[in-house]
C-alpha cells in the first residue's frame, strides 16, 4: 500500500478546496487534493458558472425581443433550449479543464476518489475501482461542500422533481414549473425558465422572496418577477404533494395573514429549499470534529475540534457562497503557514443573485443595521434618474446604502438592476479599506455610468444627492 506524506491535504476540489490548495502550494507546502467527482466542484460544474451561461442566453433572448425599442428590426426570436444547455455544459467543461491545469501548474497532487479520515493525519482514498491508498498529512482541510436539501413530500426522482442539477440539463422545457424556495437559486431559475417560455410559480415560506436581502430589494424583485408573469407566493408552507395524472398537485398552507390553503399544479417541481452539508462517510466519527445540523463546527480560523483538521466553505456553514469558500480557504492556509490574516467578517461577504433584474449586496441591510443598535443614515438613488441607465434602457432598480450615523462606517450596500453584480465590488472594496462616507463622496466616478448611482446614493444618505 503506497504511502505519501503531505504538509497539507484538501478534501474536495470546489472553489474552497482548490483555491486553498493553490495558496498552500504558493506558500511552499507539499499539497495534495482529493476529489471524488469533478475539479471545480458544484460551483463550476453544476452551480454558479453553468447557470450564468443559461441566464446569459435568457438575456440575449430578452434583448432581441425588445430590439424594436432600440430601433432594431428583428424577427421574433426562438429559444433553443438544447443549444442553450449545450453551451452551458461547454462553458463548465472549459473551466473544469482550467482547474486541472491550475493544479498541475502549482504542483498540487490530485487524487481521484472518496477520502475518509483514519485518525491523526491519515486519510484513505478509495478510487472508483475500489482500490484504496493511504495518504498522510500534517494538516487536513475539509472542503466537501453541500448539496440540495430534499423535501420529504417530494422525493427527488430526477424527472418530475428536480434539484439545481437536473434544472441545468432539462431534457425538454416543462410547461408548468413550480419552484420551492425563493432564495438566489430559486429566483435565478425562475428568471431563466420564464424567459424561455415556461409558466413559473415560486413558493416561499418566508414573508418575502430573497429573504436575506434588504426589504426594499425583495419588493422590487417581486414586482419585476410578477411583471414578467411569474407567480410569487410567500408565507406558504408545503403541506402535501400528490401525483394527479402526469402532474404534481401541491397543497400549501398559508401562514400569517389569511389562514387557508393554496392549491398549485405543476409538471415539474424544482426544490431549491436550502442545502445540507456533505459530512457523511468522511470518517468524522473517528475524530473530535463536531457536526451540527449537517455542518462542521469551526472557529474563526476554520479549525475544527480535532487538531490539524480544518473545514472551509459550504460544509462549514453559511453563507453558502463560492467566494466565501475561496476566502476561507486562503485564510485557513495562511493561518496554518503562520501568517496572520484577519478572520472572515460575514458583513464583508457580498451576495449576488443573477435574476432579471440582478441583485447585489454587501453588509447589513437597513433592518439588520437598526436591529444591531446602529443609528443609521440611509441613502437611495433610482436608476431611473441615472443618464447611462436611461440610455441603456435599464431604468429598473436602485442603489441603497446604509451608514452608521456616528462613525460614517459603511454598514451595508444593496442594489437591484442591470449589472449590479459587477458594481457591488466598489462597495466591498470601500468596506474592506474602511472608507467613511467622506472618502466615498470624494471619489470621482466616471460619467456616464450606472455606478454614478452608487455615488449618488452615498450623497443622498447625507442629504446631498445632486440629480434627484
Amino acid at each position, binding site marked *: 500500500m503506497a504511502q505519501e506524506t503531505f504538509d497539507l491535504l484538501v478534501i474536495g476540489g470546489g472553489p474552497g478546496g482548490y483555491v486553498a490548495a493553490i495558496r498552500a502550494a504558493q506558500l511552499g507546502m507539499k499539497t495534495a487534493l482529493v476529489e471524488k467527482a469533478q475539479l471545480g466542484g458544484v460551483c463550476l460544474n453544476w452551480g454558479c458558472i453553468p447557470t450564468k451561461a443559461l441566464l446569459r442566453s435568457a438575456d440575449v433572448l430578452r434583448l432581441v425581443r425588445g430590439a424594436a425599442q432600440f430601433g432594431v428590426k428583428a424577427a421574433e426570436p426562438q429559444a433553443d433550449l438544447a443549444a442553450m444547455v449545450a453551451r452551458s455544459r461547454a462553458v463548465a467543461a472549459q473551466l473544469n479543464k482550467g482547474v486541472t491545469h491550475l493544479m498541475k501548474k502549482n504542483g498540487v497532487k490530485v487524487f481521484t476518489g472518496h477520502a475518509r479520515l483514519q485518525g491523526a493525519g491519515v486519510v484513505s482514498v478509495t478510487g472508483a475501482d475500489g482500490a484504496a491508498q493511504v495518504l498522510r498529512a500534517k494538516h487536513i482541510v475539509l472542503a466537501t461542500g453541500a448539496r440540495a436539501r430534499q423535501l420529504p413530500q417530494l422525493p427527488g426522482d430526477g424527472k418530475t422533481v428536480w434539484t439545481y442539477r437536473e434544472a441545468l440539463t432539462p431534457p425538454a422545457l416543462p410547461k408548468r414549473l413550480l419552484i420551492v424556495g425563493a432564495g438566489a437559486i430559486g429566483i435565478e431559475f425562475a428568471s431563466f425558465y420564464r424567459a424561455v417560455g415556461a409558466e413559473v410559480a415560486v413558493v416561499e415560506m418566508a414573508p418575502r422572496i430573497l429573504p436575506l436581502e434588504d426589504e426594499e430589494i425583495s419588493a422590487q424583485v417581486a414586482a419585476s418577477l410578477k411583471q414578467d408573469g411569474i407567480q410569487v407566493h410567500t408565507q406558504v408552507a408545503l403541506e402535501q404533494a400528490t401525483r394527479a395524472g402526469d402532474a404534481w398537485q401541491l397543497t400549501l398552507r398559508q401562514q400569517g395573514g389569511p389562514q387557508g390553503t393554496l392549491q398549485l399544479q405543476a409538471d415539474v417541481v424544482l426544490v431549491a429549499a436550502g442545502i445540507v452539508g456533505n459530512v457523511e462517510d468522511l470518517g468524522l466519527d473517528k475524530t*473530535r470534529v*463536531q457536526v451540527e445540523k449537517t455542518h462542521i*463546527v*469551526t*472557529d*474563526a*480560523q476554520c*479549525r*475544527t*475540534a*480535532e*487538531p490539524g483538521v480544518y473545514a472551509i466553505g459550504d460544509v462549514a456553514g453559511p453563507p453558502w457562497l463560492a467566494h466565501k469558500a475561496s476566502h476561507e480557504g486562503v485564510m485557513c492556509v495562511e493561518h496554518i503557514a503562520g501568517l*496572520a490574516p*484577519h*478572520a472572515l467578517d460575514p458583513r464583508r461577504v457580498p451576495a449576488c443573485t443573477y435574476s432579471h433584474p440582478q441583485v447585489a449586496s454587501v453588509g447589513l441591510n437597513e433592518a439588520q443595521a437598526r436591529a444591531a443598535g446602529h443609528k443609521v443614515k440611509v441613502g437611495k438613488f433610482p436608476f431611473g434618474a441615472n443618464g447611462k441607465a436611461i440610455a441603456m434602457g435599464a431604468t429598473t432598480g436602485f442603489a441603497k446604502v446604509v451608514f452608521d450615523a*456616528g*462613525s*460614517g*462606517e459603511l454598514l451595508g450596500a444593496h442594489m437591484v438592476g442591470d449589472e449590479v453584480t459587477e458594481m457591488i465590488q466598489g462597495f466591498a472594496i470601500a468596506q474592506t*479599506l*474602511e*472608507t*467613511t462616507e*467622506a*472618502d466615498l463622496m470624494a471619489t470621482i466616478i466616471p460619467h456616464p455610468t450606472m455606478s454614478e448611482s452608487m455615488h449618488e446614493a452615498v450623497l443622498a444618505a447625507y442629504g446631498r444627492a445632486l440629480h434627484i
Partner: protein
Amino acid sequence: MATLLRMPEVAANSTHATLSAWTRQEGDTVAAGDCLAEIETDKAVVEFNAESAGVLGRLLVQAGQEVEVGAPIAVLLAQGEAAADVEALLQAAGAAAAPMAAPVQQSAAVVSAAATTAASDAGERLRASPLARRLAAQRGMALAGLAGSGPNGRIVKIDIERASSQPAAAVPAAAVSAPAPAGSVGYAEVPHSNMRRTIAKRLAESKSTIPHFYLSVDCRMERLLALRAEINAGASRKISVNDFIVRAVAVALREVPQANVGWTDSAMRQYQQADIAVAVSTDTGLITPIVRAADGKTLSQISAEIADLAARARAGQLRPEEYQGGSFSVSNLGMYGVGEFAAIINPPQAAILAVGASRQQPVVEGGELKVGTVMRCTLSVDHRAIDGALAAQWLAAFQRAIESPLSILV
C-alpha cells in the same frame, strides 16, 4: 495676527510627540492659558496651553498623530481674523521654507524636509484606515502607539476597538464562538502603549548592556519602626517606611559620594546631589518620579513630596522633568510581602536598591537565638562605574542609617 502653534519639546531632547487629543475645536475662542490639546510623550500626557488669546483657526494635525517637535500643529487667529488669514499664513510659512531649500539641491534630506507640508510628518507614514482615524479621533485615542493588524501594519477598526476595550474585556471578544480546539491556547493581543514600549526598550537595553552585580544586606528594623511609631503617633500625616528608606539612601550617598555616579561612554558622571528616583507602579506601567536633592531635605519634606509625585504619577500627570534624570533609584516591593529581589538598573544611573519586606525572623545576637525584625535590601550595581568594595561601603553606610535612624533625622 494669525500665528502658527508648533509642537513643543515636552521632554528634553525628544524629537517627536503624539498629539493624543484636541480638547478644543476649530472655531473655538480661547483665552491665554486654556488647554488646547493633550500631548503624549513616552511617559506622560501633558497639556498644551494657549500662550495668547484668539480663535483656533485651523487644526493642522489629527488627534493621534505623531508630530515632529517644532512642526506646526494649529493656526491661532486674532479676534476678527478670517479663514483667509489662515491660508495666507500657511502660504507664507511654505514660502519661507522654499527659498531655504533651493540652494541646497544636493541635500535630498533638506529638500524633502522643506517640502514637507505643515500637516504631514516627515517621519514614517502612519498607516490607518479612514474609519480607524475617525473612531480614534472620536474616542480621543492616539493612533501612533497602536499595532495595526491590517496589511503592512495598517491600523483598522478592530484595532481601535481592541485598544479601547480593557484588556480583561478584550479576551472574551477575541475568543471565538466556535469550540476551542483541543490543545490550543486562546489569547488576545493588546497593542503596546508608548509607556510599555519605553519600559521594554530601556530595561532590555539595561539588562543586556550593563554588567550588573548584586550585594544584599539584612537591616535590623526595630529601632526605625519604634522611631516611626513615635513620630506618627502625633502626626496628621504618617511617615512610611519607604520615606525613611529614601532618606537613608540620600544620607548614604552623601557619606559615600563616589557611589553617586553615572556611566556614560566617554566619562564618569559625578552627581552633585542625591536625586532619588522612586519606582511607582501605575495601571499602565512603571514610572519613576524623582525626589530632587533628597540629601538636603527633611524626612517630612521627602514624605510629602513622594505622596504628591506618586498620586500624580498614577493619574498620568507627571511633567517629564519630574521623572527624567535622577542619580539613584529605589524600588520597594516590601508592601507586597516580597522578601527579597534584584532590580534592573535605570541607565545612566549606576545603582538601584531593591527593598524587601520587614519580617520577623530568628536572629542570632551574641550567641543567642532571638526574634528580630529584618528587612533585606539588594543593591544592583553597574560594575563599569562602581567596584565591589565601594558598593559594599555604600551599602554599609545605608545599613547604618537604617539601623541608627536618628542619623536620618539630622
